[in-house]
C-alpha cells in the first residue's frame, strides 16, 4: 500500500522528519503515535501530498505521489481541525464533496448514525465543535476507499458518537482496508489498533504490535508502555 523511503522534512531550521522508512503492506489499523511535535501530522500530510518533503520518496499503491493528484482518489482523510466555509449548509457541503469526488457514497446511513438530521439545513458556522467533527467524520467515511487516514478522530466527540466511530473503524477494517490513525487517547488506540508505529525525533522508533510493545518496555498497559519509550529515550 504505502512505501516511504528516507523521508526528510524540515520547516526552516526545525527538522521534523529525519529519514523515515516505513512500509505498510498489509491491511489493518496502524496507529501513528509519538509525543507532541514528533512529526505525526507532518508524516500524514506528506502521504497526502499536502507537505512536500525535501528528500525521500513516497509511493501509494505503487504510484509515486510527487506531482500526482489522482492517487488521492484512493484515500479518505479526516483532518485534525474541522473548519468549513461558514456560509454553506451541512447538506451543501456534503453535496459539494460528493460532487468533487464523483463516487458512490453512503452519507445517509452515517447521517442517521450520528443523528445529524436536525443540522442538515444549518449553516456550518453555527455548529458546535463536536457537531462539526461529526460532519467531518461523515465526509470521511461516506466513500469507499482502500486507505483511510484519521488525524485525531476523537476530538470533541461525546461518548455515544465515540462508540459509533469505533464501530465504523472496525467495519472498515473488516472490509480489508488500511487505516492510519493518530491519537493521544491511548485507551482508544489500544481498542482499535493492530500495529503501533512510534515516531520520536523524526524517526520511526518502534513498529510492531501492542503485545510486542508491552513486552519490550515491560509494562502492562499501553499508556505506560508509550510513556516508557519516551522516557527511555530521554535517559539514554
Amino acid at each position, binding site marked *: 500500500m504505502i512505501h516511504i523511503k528516507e523521508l526528510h522534512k524540515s520547516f526552516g531550521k526545525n527538522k521534523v522528519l529525519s529519514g523515515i522508512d516505513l512500509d505498510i503492506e498489509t491491511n489493518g489499523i496502524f496507529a501513528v503515535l509519538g509525543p507532541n511535535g514528533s512529526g505525526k501530522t507532518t508524516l500524514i500530510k506528506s502521504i497526502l501530498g499536502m507537505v512536500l518533503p525535501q528528500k525521500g520518496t513516497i509511493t501509494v499503491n505503487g504510484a509515486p505521489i510527487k506531482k500526482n493528484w489522482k492517487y488521492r482518489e484512493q484515500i479518505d482523510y479526516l483532518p485534525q481541525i474541522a473548519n468549513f*466555509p461558514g456560509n454553506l449548509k451541512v447538506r451543501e457541503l456534503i453535496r459539494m464533496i460528493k460532487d*468533487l469526488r464523483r463516487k458512490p457514497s453512503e452519507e445517509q446511513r452515517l447521517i442517521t448514525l450520528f443523528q445529524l438530521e436536525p443540522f442538515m439545513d444549518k449553516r456550518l458556522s453555527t455548529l458546535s465543535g463536536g457537531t462539526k467533527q461529526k460532519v467531518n467524520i461523515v465526509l470521511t467515511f461516506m466513500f469507499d476507499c482502500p486507505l483511510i487516514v484519521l488525524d485525531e478522530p476523537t476530538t470533541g466527540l461525546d461518548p455515544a458518537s465515540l462508540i459509533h466511530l469505533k464501530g465504523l473503524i472496525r467495519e472498515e477494517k473488516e472490509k480489508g482496508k488500511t487505516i492510519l490513525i493518530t491519537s493521544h487517547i491511548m485507551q482508544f488506540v489500544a481498542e482499535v489498533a493492530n500495529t503501533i508505529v512510534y515516531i520520536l525525533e523524526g524517526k520511526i522508533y518502534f513498529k510492531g504490535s501492542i503485545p510486542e510493545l508491552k513486552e519490550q518496555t515491560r509494562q502492562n498497559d499501553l499508556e505506560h508502555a508509550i510513556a516508557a519509550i519516551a522516557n527511555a529515550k530521554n535517559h539514554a
Partner: protein
Amino acid sequence: MLKILKYSFFDLIRSRWSYVYFLFYLLLGFVLLFLNNDVSKAVITLMNIIIVLVPLIGTIFGVMYYYNSKEFTELLLAQPIRRTSIFLGQYFGVAGSLTMSLVLGLGIPFVMYGLFKSDAIFDFSLLLVTGAFLTLIFTALSFNIALSNENKIKGFGYAVLLWLFLAVIYDGLFLMSLIIFKEYPLDTFSLAATMINPIDLSRILILLELDISALLGYTGAVFKKFFGTQTGLIISIVMLVIWTAIPLWWLTYKAKRKDF
C-alpha cells in the same frame, strides 16, 4: 477548477459583506445620478471613487477570504484535485463575486436612469471593465500576500500597505520626482512610471476615453501625445491584462510549492 469556483462564488454571494458592497454601489449610483443629473458627469465622479475603493476592497476581501478558508483549503487539498485548480477556483470565486457586486450595483441605477439612450454607454462600460480589472489585479496580489504569510496580522498589514502605496504614496513619489528632475526630459520616465502602477494606468485609461484634457494631468498628456487615444487605450488594456496575469502565474507557482 470550475467546481471550486462555483462553490466559492456561492459561498461569497451569500455573505453579508457582498450585499453591503453591492448596496453601497447601488446607493452611490443613485445618489450620483440624481445629484449630477447627467450620466457623463456621474461617470467621472464614479471613476475617482472606483479607482481608490475597488483596489482596497479587492485587497481586503482577498486576504480575508484566504485566511478564513484556510482549513477548508486543507480539506480540499486532501481531495483528488489539482492544487492550482483549488487556488485559481477560490481566486476567481472572490474576484467574480466582487465584480458582480460592482457591475450590478452600478449597472442597475445607470440602466434605470437611461444609460442605453445616452451616449455615455461606452464610457460607462469602460469604467466597469477597468473596475473589473482592478478587482482581478488586487485580489490576485492579496492572495499572493496571504499565501506567503502564515501570520494573519502581517498578511493584512502588507496587503493594506500595498494598497496605500499604489493608491496614495506612489503618486506622491511620482510627483516629487517630476519636480526634482524637472530639468531633464521626463516623458519616457513618466510613461514607464504610469505603466507599472495599475491604479494610475486605469485612471489614464478612463480619462483618455472621456477625453477631458483638464483632468488628464501631466502623464495623461504625455500618454496621449505619445500613443494617441486609440493606441493608448489598447496599450493600457494590454498592460492591465499583464498586471492580472503575472500575479496569477506567481500564485500558481507558489501554491505548487507550499506546505499545508
